[in-house]
């Protein structure tokens, strides 16, 4: 039992980090219709911004804030300078997937060319471990869980209850009608990119804090798990992303505790595939409608 409970605790930590990023990923997809596989690179890049700040003595939590802003700006810039022109050029949904992959490759390897294939870590003590019954969590992990819970709640709440959030959801399902209601679609799309990028930044720093060492490609490697969580939850649904993150996080850790821990990711991915076979649209799929990717 205690193994189970402690594994559950670890699962929640993993889920927290996943949830931040998965919500960002899925939010952006649902509003803008771009399956952005460069998301992991934005995480990495923002994570490095935090690293550089951290190196000159900025507290890591402050650096996280800076990373959020930076991630947001990078996202907006990628959209305005690359994705939008390509979409206007008539590139279809599938073409956009390939373009986002290319952007991700360029970012990752550009960064790698600059920082080298080395390992980096933040200057931030994990803090003492706190025991709650069988849960063992450090201060840092608790902080990350709190941030994740707060952020996902804020995003979900904002989408659900604020006027802007409703506009964003409206834009996701029916852009023409949203415009007819007076929604300034361009700015709202930019905002969606910004929020998604900011979540990528925070998720990136949280991830890097958690794994303690990172390289120029860590974010992109983690992206697969993010996608798994998002797809499991139903692409386009922030609530689904949180649930998907929880499932993936808990399955990996609990599975790892009882089964071969090397295969814990495999277990989580298998759960995802089985769920999709039963519910092809994912757990929640309210925001996103079917989008044919290939021509």
């Amino acid at each position: 039992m205690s193994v189970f409970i402690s594994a559950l605790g670890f699962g929640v930590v993993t889920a927290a980090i996943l949830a931040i990023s998965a919500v960002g990923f899925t939010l952006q997809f649902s509003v803008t219709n771009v399956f952005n596989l460069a998301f992991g690179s934005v995480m990495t890049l923002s994570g490095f911004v935090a690293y550089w700040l951290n190196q000159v003595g900025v507290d890591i939590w402050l650096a996280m804030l800076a990373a959020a802003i930076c991630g947001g700006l990078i996202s907006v810039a990628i959209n305005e300078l690359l994705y939008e022109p390509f979409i206007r050029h008539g590139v279809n949904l599938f073409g956009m997937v390939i373009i986002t992959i290319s952007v991700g490759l360029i970012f990752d390897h550009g960064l790698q060319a600059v920082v080298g294939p080395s390992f980096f870590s933040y200057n931030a003590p994990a803090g003492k471990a706190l025991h709650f019954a069988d849960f063992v969590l450090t201060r840092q992990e608790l902080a990350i869980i709190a941030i994740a819970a707060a952020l996902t709640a804020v995003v979900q709440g904002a989408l659900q209850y604020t006027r802007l959030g409703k506009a964003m959801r409206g834009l996701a399902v029916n852009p023409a009608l949203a415009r007819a209601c007076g929604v300034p679609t361009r700015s709202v799309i930019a905002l969606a990119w910004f929020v998604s990028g900011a979540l990528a930044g925070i998720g990136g720093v949280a991830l890097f804090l958690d794994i303690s060492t990172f390289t120029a490609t860590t974010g992109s490697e983690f992206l697969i798990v993010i996608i798994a969580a998002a797809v499991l939850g139903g692409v386009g649904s922030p609530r689904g992303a949180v649930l998907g993150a929880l499932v993936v996080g808990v399955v990996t850790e609990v599975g790892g505790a009882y089964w071969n821990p090397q295969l814990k990711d495999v277990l989580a991915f298998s759960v995802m595939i089985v769920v999709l076979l039963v519910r092809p649209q994912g757990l929640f799929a309210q925001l996103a409608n079917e989008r044919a990717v290939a021509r």
Partner: protein
Amino acid sequence: NSSAGSTGNAQSKSSGVKAAVATTGSVEVAIFHAFSGPNAAYGPEAGAGCYPAERLINAAGGILGHQLVCTPVDSKGDPADAVPAANRMIASSSNLVGVLGGGSDTATSVVPLFQQAKIPVFSTTGQSAFDKTKDTYFWRILSPDAAQGSAMAAAAKKLGFKRVAALFGNDSAAQGSAPTAVSGVKRLRLKVVANQTLAVGQTSYRSEAQAMSTAKPQAIVSEADPQTSATFFSELSQVGQVPKLITDPVSQEPTWRKAMIGAIGKSALDQRDYAVVAYSPMTSQAYKVYTAALLASSKQVSKPSQWDADLYSVADYDSVITMALAMDAAHSTKPGVYNAYITKVTSPAHGATVVHTYAAGKAALAKGKRIQYVGAVGPLAFNRYHNAGNQFAIEQFVNGNWKVSSVLSAAEIRAASGL
């Protein structure tokens, strides 16, 4: 074998192919290793051996009038990329006389290519596949990973631990020593309280750390790449105590230390870490010459001091010096000719002059004497499979330096390996 990660990138004056053309009259030694990908540390590590040798050899007037040049070539650490890169390298340089390369990641696919091309290759692979190789152009100075594993087990016994855990990455480098380490610990009648294999590069090992913490080992025998180690031990330190560590040369790599210091702190690391490494009397004359040359090579090697205790760098240094001396002994820079002289300049023989530097060896050869080069890693006793092998010692990091705390005797290692 050594593992991933590095801050230093080898820098040479010109690109691999260009160098061959630009410096006619020179002979070329290729650093054929991963400079990118997960094993990107291999390249700079070998560079830290090659460039000091280049400096010393050229300072001594070169080999038979030729200047020696080290040329980095990226194998990318995977066979599919390494094979064309090796073939291109062989094809495009007419004066390639030797290769430092073929780590555990690529050796089995590229060593045969150098064999075909009749170019001596000094490999750092730890794979047992080469223990009894028939490749005549293959040379290996350091013991294979299997021997490393046995040595780690012997170290656990010697340090007096009763409850030992094993923790290895699932990458090829770590898996080379894992089986013999575990079997050695068992053979020495120590209790294996946990035996874990980590899937490298995961974002969390909390479950594994929790299990490790529950097992309460006195020491963990471990080899894993920097990122995996750091993630695991940072999580272990969060759920419980980090016990003593019995590690391998990987832990002497700067990147590994950097990552682990980030994870558990410097003093915690230094108090716990026992590195089991090839024993070379690092106070030897050859070693001093090497470190001096290394520190002087900051143009080609970034942050040279980070490599001064790195055994692979040292072995690569010895490799280049050995090649150069063999060429002098053979009066030829032709790889096909001097290859046969490699054992001749390293094996102990009656009346042979023992030399510790290239300059001394060259001078002795010029006088028509037979020489035995005793390198920075110690004597290079190549067996008939061109494997030299080495002694092992336990080292600790004290006051900014690695210090030998005890040397493992051959008997102790035999007890662990059962051979």
